[in-house]
């Protein structure tokens, strides 16, 4: 049955619309094939497209068939047998040239191949009827249109794939860009953080280094940093201040400051630095840039670096020169104190003995003719006793227990007085030079004792210059700092008068210097000296709250420096000499308080010989009891200080308490200047040292009674 023209147009039109309806390939093929099969009333159909894969032979593949399991339709499979067995390009091209192709299957179904140039073919299967030739003719352009649509779809698909690919690539690029930007941003943030942290760390490191450098710079102890080659890499300010060396001074030197006296310790120190070990606990002698030798304690710290060869040795040097000096001075001071205690004790006992010898000698001299033989014996005894008394006095002075009468004096005048004496006594080969400060140097001093100091030093200088030489005496006002005073007990910072006595004699070794102030130490031959000159000078100066120093080197002369504290206000005071009265003796009643029976008896003999009535008390308690009973008749109490029981000072206080107007003369064979001053402050009329001469005690008693 041939379709009418209008019917054919309608059907073809609807098929054509279905072909044009979409650009989506699967949908296009599905809709077009459905419309073809449906409108042409076919039993099956399929669109087979040329499949050209790069790595496989060309062939046709059906993206869509109706029904989908077309391979189960025998006639459909039979129709496909029309395709080239070997689907080469030429065979496929030859097959395409034959289209449209019609035929009949064994079961009577009709098949129709239409060309979908250049993409494949359309296969329609029609059962129980055939397509009219006009229909077949009309279907050719529709098939061609479908082919074009497929081409368009493929192009669009390719374009879309390209676009999709481009979009995907763009998206990937964008993603990568975003990721990269994020990474860059993250990394930037991280880097910023790291940089900030690094800056902080660097700043902290710099501050730490600065602090360490500042710490090292401000460290009071010298610090020097060595490398393994013993070449200094760093020195701090204290180092430069102490040694005078700059870092540049070490450019070609390994350890120039090691003094030769360091000896094996210096070598050991170098080896330790070279081995990277930390030296510690050693002391070496180093020399400064002025070649002065300093005693230095060394402590080392090894700072490890990444490379062993870069290790640095930090040496902390502590100048112990002054410490050593102070220690020596302390030892010396302690030694002198011990010696003083010893000699003081001996002198005290000797004094008591000498008091008895001297007293009885004087009493005998009054009774025996001085020109008789016995008189001459007594004179000899008296002379020896006097020498013994002088010796004990010097011992007491050396042990700082001598009696000093400190009054403001001009040191320059004392020096001038001494120089006058020296000019007469020293040998002419000794040239005396003086350099005195033009202005007076007022010190609280005992002019006689100070003069004795100058004479002692000058005599020693003369001995040190057997062939003659120069003796120089200089005075000047100086200020002593606290550091200087530390090594001397009782020495206080302030203004001092410096008296220096120097010679250019043979000088002394350090070992000798250490002993020169010890009593009885002498380098002179026997009989040339007592060994008490410098020790008494030492005691006198120390009693003046001063200090005497000695600097000397063998062959380079000797310098003694005496520092005496200037009197407050530097007011020149005239020495107040007590008015001595010629009167010696009286009729008053005296109370003698002393535990030494011999002393009491001697004093009693002397005083009774002088006309006085004498009452005796053996200790303070007895004296107080007697005084309370007979105070109306007792005019004066002669009181010893060193007694058992309550002692002299307490007794004095008790007496003063009983009678504030009581007259007390303190007599003691062993009393320090401070102790004497103390009893005077407690109200004693005077202080007289034992052993005393007859004239002395009579004079002091009379002065006390008349005061």
């Amino acid at each position, binding site marked *: *049955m041939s*379709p009418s023209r*209008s*019917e054919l147009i*309608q*059907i073809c*039109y*609807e098929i054509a*619309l279905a072909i044009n309806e979409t650009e989506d390939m699967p949908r296009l093929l599905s809709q077009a094939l*459905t419309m073809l*099969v*449906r*409108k*042409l*009333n*076919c*039993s*099956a159909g399929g669109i087979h497209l040329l499949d050209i894969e790069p790595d496989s032979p060309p062939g046709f593949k059906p993206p869509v068939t*109706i*029904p*989908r*399991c*077309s391979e*189960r*339709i025998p006639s459909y499979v039979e129709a496909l047998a029309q395709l080239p067995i070997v689907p080469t390009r030429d065979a496929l091209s030859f097959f395409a040239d034959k289209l449209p192709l019609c035929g009949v299957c064994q079961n009577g*179904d009709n098949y129709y191949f239409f060309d979908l140039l250049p993409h494949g073919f359309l296969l329609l299967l029609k*059962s*129980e*009827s055939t*397509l009219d030739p006009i*229909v077949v003719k009309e279907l050719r352009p529709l098939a061609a249109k479908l082919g074009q649509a497929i081409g368009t779809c493929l192009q669009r698909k390719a374009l879309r794939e390209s676009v999709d690919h481009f979009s995907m690539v763009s998206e990937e690029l964008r993603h990568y860009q975003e990721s990269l930007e994020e990474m860059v941003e993250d990394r930037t943030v991280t880097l910023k953080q790291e940089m900030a942290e690094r800056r902080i760390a660097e700043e902290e490191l710099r501050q730490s280094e600065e602090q360490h450098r500042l710490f090292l710079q401000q460290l009071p102890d010298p610090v020097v940093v060595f490398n393994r080659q013993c070449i200094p890499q760093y020195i701090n300010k204290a180092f430069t201040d102490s040694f005078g060396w700059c870092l540049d001074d070490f450019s070609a030197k390994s350890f120039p400051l090691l003094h030769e006296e360091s000896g094996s310790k210096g070598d050991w120190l170098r080896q330790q630095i070279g081995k990277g070990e930390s030296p510690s606990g050693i002391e070496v002698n180093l020399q400064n840039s002025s070649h002065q030798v300093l005693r230095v304690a060394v402590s080392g710290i090894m700072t490890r670096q990444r490379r062993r060869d870069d290790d640095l040795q930090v040496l902390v040097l502590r100048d112990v020169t002054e410490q050593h000096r102070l220690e020596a001075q302390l030892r010396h001071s302690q030694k002198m104190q011990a010696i003083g205690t010893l000699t003081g004790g001996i002198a005290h006992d000797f004094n008591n003995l000498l008091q008895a010898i001297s007293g009885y000698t004087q009493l005998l001299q009054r009774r025996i003719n001085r020109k008789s033989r016995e008189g001459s014996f007594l004179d000899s005894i008296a002379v020896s006793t006097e020498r013994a008394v002088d010796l004990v006095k010097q011992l007491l002075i050396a042990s700082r227990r001598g009696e000093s009468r400190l009054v403001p004096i001009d040191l320059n005048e004392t020096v001038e007085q001494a120089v006058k004496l020296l000019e007469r006594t020293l040998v002419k080969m000794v040239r005396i030079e003086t350099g005195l400060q033009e202005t007076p140097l007022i010190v609280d001093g005992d002019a006689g004792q100070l003069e004795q100091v100058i004479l002692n030093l000058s005599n020693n200088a003369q001995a040190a210059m057997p062939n003659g030489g120069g003796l120089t005496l200089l005075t000047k006002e100086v200020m002593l700092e606290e550091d200087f005073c530390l090594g001397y007990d009782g020495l206080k910072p302030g203004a001092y008068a410096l008296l220096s006595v120097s010679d250019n004699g043979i000088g002394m070794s350090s070992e000798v210097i250490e002993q020169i102030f010890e009593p009885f130490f002498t380098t002179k031959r026997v009989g040339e000296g007592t060994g008490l000159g410098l020790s008494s000078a030492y005691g006198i100066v120390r009693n003046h709250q001063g200090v005497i120093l000695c600097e000397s080197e063998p062959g380079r002369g000797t310098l003694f420096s005496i520092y005496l504290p200037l009197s407050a206000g530097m007011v020149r005071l005239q020495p107040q000499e007590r008015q001595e009265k010629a009167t010696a003796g009286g009729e008053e009643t005296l109370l003698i308080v002393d535990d030494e029976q011999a002393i009491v008896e001697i004093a009693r003999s002397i005083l009774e010989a002088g006309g006085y009535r004498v009452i005796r008390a053996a200790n303070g308690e007895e004296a107080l009891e007697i005084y309370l009973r007979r105070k109306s008749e007792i005019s004066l109490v002669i009181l010893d200080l060193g007694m058992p029981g309550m002692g002299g000072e307490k007794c004095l206080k008790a007496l003063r308490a009983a009678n504030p107007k009581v007259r007390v003369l303190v007599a003691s064979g062993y009393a320090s200047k401070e102790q004497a001053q103390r009893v005077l402050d407690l109200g004693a009329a005077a202080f007289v040292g034992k052993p005393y001469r007859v004239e002395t005690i009579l004079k002091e008693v009379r002065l006390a009674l008349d005061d």
Partner: protein
Amino acid sequence: MFMPVPEVGRLLIFFEVNALEPIMEIEHTGQVEALEAICVDFERHADVAGLLILTCDANGYTPELLDPLLTSCCLPLIGAVFPEIIVGNKTLIQGSIVVGLRQRPDIFSIAGLSDQSVDFEEAICSAIPDFCLGQTVLVFVDAFGSRLADLMEGLFNNFGLEVNYLGGGSGSLSFNQKPCVLTNQGMLEDAAVIALLDVASGVGVQHGWSSLAGPYKVTESTGCTIVSIDWQPAYTLYKQVLSEQQGISFAGRDFYAIAQNYPFGLRKLDAEMVVRDPLTVGAAGEMTCVGEVPENSYLDILIGDVDTLVDAASEALRFALHNHTAASETAPLLLFDCVSRSAFMEDEFQRELDVFHGSGRRVIGALTLGEIANCGKSYLELFNKTTVVGVIDL
């Protein structure tokens, strides 16, 4: 019938051959309990491996009433609710036909017939059992689903011409969509149920309508609704043609009462036009049919008379028998005749029923809202106003 003396083992076979009478029960009350009783009997029947249920809309079955029965049934079942059912040369407006299927059918349902997102071809493909033997496919659909043509394409693309399709649209003449498809999951709405039967069949499809006027171009349509024809509101052109050529006025008259006499026809090559039965007209002049009308397609306004329609029924029967010449004498006719043919032919519809009844075979079936079949070796279609008859070895 001559039967050779069988061996003991073959005797059963002969008994089976003798038992090829269809197993079926007709229920006339429309009561659920009566239907349930038949189903229970069939469940106990040794020869029944599945159920085919054709039931009437007038029974008033709802999911609440029927689902307990359907879901508890241990036999696979397929069925639908139709305006009327056919038994012999009679139509019943109440009651049910229950057929016991001797071969166990593979049954699956497809939901969402109006859902544009459903890919029916893929849905059917995934629903088909991995291994199934089917020669005949029974298909019942909710007639008011809007994508029935897509479902037909999906069926054809999956099963091709290896099977015969037979079925129709179910629902109510109230034209309100409601659950009308019967499955083991219950009564479904907007769904289809499909059974693959491994039994031979022959199918005949004819309608007897011819062109009154046309062709006209469908210039706008959506699914089953024709919005415009030849750039005019569909109803405007429709009225105009009928007025001019038939002197018919719609004023004051029921639309369907007239429209059932003048359906649309979609042309296809070498076959009768596919009829689309206009059911309703909208306010904007759009006309809704049973089955889709593609946009840009051409259609004719058809006209028919009782004689041509009865002749077409005879022709359909002839085709069916021709297509299954090996059918047993007891193989019944499964008839799906359009309910609008019945309305159009009125009392003369009996003549059409008599055509089938006159074949000497048992006739069961239903008046449908759209018919599903492929005519011989041609494309599967959803027809309207068409007679679909199958001779099938149930």
